[in-house]
């Protein structure tokens, strides 16, 4: 419950926090303002500035009309692609991660420590080392240039994080619970369904938020493994800005960036509390 006294030290705290918060908001403000300026104005003055005319139309153009690589349907199809990749990959990797985390921390089996160690090392493997091997794998599975291929990549890679989060959370579940259930004759699946899963919402939310953000914002694989209409939104955004023989449409581009960031921003806006709560419950140890 917030304190209601206003001693000098509290005023100082409020002041400091407000200043820092303002500093944190500045980059967002710059993009929002740019999304409401015309390209000519930005080109003629500067990348940072207050709009002289309010170009609300930028958003409509970015959504439905803007020409990216000769297809003039705006960013709408790419947002859809991103969703088609991020949502399934998040759900599957979270589910698999929670089962794996449960298996490693509660159910236990021979070799569990080792495999867990290797799986979590995956967090540290840089993406450049995976680019070409995935090319080979996708080719052998005939999944080149498909959204399914991207989903597979993100699911398998995501297992590293999701298993880590879930395992650290489940470790806190009292072993007596497990023992009692096993004495009662419950098996692997029943324990998961009846005991572990109902206790999981805090960590599942953390995992979902984390995975969704990572997959939605991922750029390298999206550009390399898909073309044209299959591409996710991050690749399309790069298309808006990379041209030597042209001045980029900064206004529309900023509007596109805002819309592309909206899903993850909303996820943190509404899920922020659960995010901290889940971390409190011990997502990372």
């Amino acid at each position, binding site marked *: 419950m917030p304190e209601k006294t206003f001693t000098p030290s509290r005023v100082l705290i409020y002041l400091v926090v407000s200043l820092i918060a303002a500093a944190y908001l500045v980059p967002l403000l710059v993009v929002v303002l740019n999304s409401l300026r015309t390209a000519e104005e930005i*080109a003629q003055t500067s990348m940072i500035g207050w709009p002289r005319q309010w170009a609300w139309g930028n958003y409509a153009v970015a959504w439905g009309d803007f020409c*990216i690589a*000769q297809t003039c349907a705006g960013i709408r199809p790419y947002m859809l692609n991103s969703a088609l990749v991020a949502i399934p990959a998040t759900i599957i990797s979270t589910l698999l991660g929670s089962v794996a985390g449960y298996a490693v921390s509660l159910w236990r089996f021979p070799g569990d420590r080792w495999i867990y160690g290797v799986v979590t090392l995956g967090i540290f493997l840089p993406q450049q080392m995976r680019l070409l091997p995935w090319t080979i794998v996708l*080719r052998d599975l005939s999944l080149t240039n498909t959204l399914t291929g991207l989903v597979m990549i993100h699911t398998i890679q995501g297992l590293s994080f999701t298993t880590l989060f879930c395992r650290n959370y489940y470790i806190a579940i009292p072993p007596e619970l497990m023992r009692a259930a096993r004495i009662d004759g419950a098996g692997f699946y029943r324990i998961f369904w009846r005991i572990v899963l109902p206790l999981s919402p805090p960590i599942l939310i953390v995992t979902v938020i984390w995975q969704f953000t990572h997959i939605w914002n991922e750029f390298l694989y999206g550009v390399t493994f898909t073309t*044209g209409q299959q591409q996710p939104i991050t690749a399309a955004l790069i298309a808006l800005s990379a*041209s030597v023989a042209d*001045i980029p449409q900064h206004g529309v581009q900023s509007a596109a960036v805002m819309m592309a960031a909206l899903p993850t921003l909303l996820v943190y806006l509404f899920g922020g509390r659960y995010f901290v709560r889940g971390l409190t419950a011990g997502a990372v140890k």
Partner: protein
Amino acid sequence: MNKISRRAMLAGSAGLLAAPRHARAQAAKPRLTVISQWSAGSDGAAITALGKKFEEKGGTWQHSPVPGFTTEMMNKLRAQIMAGDPPACSQLKGPEIAAWSKIAATVNLDALVAGAGYEKVVAPDLARLHKPGGKWISLPLQIYSTNMLFLSKRAMDKAKADKIPVTWADFNALAEKMKAGGVTYPIANGGTRPDDGQKFEAALAGISPAAYRTAIMNLDDKALKGPELKAAFAQVRSIADWMDPNTAAQHYSINLPRFVAGDMGMMIQGGWAQGVLLNAGFKLDDFIIAPGPSDNGKPVFLLNADAFIFWQRKEPDLQAGQTLMAQLVMDPAIQTMYSQITGSIPVRTDVDLSGAGWSDGQRRTAAALKEAVAADQAVLSLAHNMAQENGMTAAMIDVLTEYVKNKAITPEQAVARLSNAVEGAR
């Protein structure tokens, strides 16, 4: 199945295999899968127009532009080649053509080139790049000069100058005059790697195209340590001193407003800058275009040419598409259309640029190319990956970009570093 029909079947298949590709291809409707990085702007518009012409001739055009820079396009190309599914045609240029042709099979275009008489109208240095191993496997489409001089009219007025500089000495004198006349930065530059490379190659080629050829194109060690290199680095240092240091890693286009307003005086850029200036809303009479400085009186041309390479495919419709595409690319009317959209000049030296669709800048560039070829002063651009493969180019540009951004490096040190970098990257 009795023996006779089996023999007949074998004979029939052999006959099919022996039939000229051409004849089989003619039966199929042409189709073309293309990869390029030209997804936006005038480049995008030009390749779309080319696609339309392809479809007008009855073909199916399947272009997949890869957003991003050339690396992303090359990654995509590599991924598809490794997957065994190369596009029928892709953008590629310079010595990379030779390098990539070793990892996947390409199409022999000799017959088509001979039929169109293309080789006669292409600059020899350029033609060489597209015939690694002696056979044509790719076709150049458009040419840019990377060392065009752009002069701001208003800055010239401030400097009270009206003569276009011809030699580097003229250039330096004009820069000083501009500074004295109140132009804050006589040179409007970009901070990207190609920009830094462009300054160096313009300086070296302007001082001595012969030295440029031996040192940069042939990587002759003695030439790399020669006096012309030192002079070129000294010239680059002067240029760097006249630039705005704030343009960190940014595209040169952010300086265009100040360039037009006369606050910055000159640009050493490729011909594409004309298109960029016009697209930004500036007018042709805001600036003057001239060939880059050349110390020996005859124009020096730094070539940057885009090209299409053709990858071997078994499907007859793709093969028909490749034939059609090759014919289109070599066609003077198509080259005219393409260059008018992008602001480049056609590869063919026999195209007449006196028509209405061409700008003075393009005419001057084309004339410069002709003269330069005649004087054997048409050389390949280093900064745009025409002189060397990407690995070597990047190693050399590492040195150049460090030199431009670090005033403490002397020309002597730069020369040493450059030859070391070349050795290390061989």
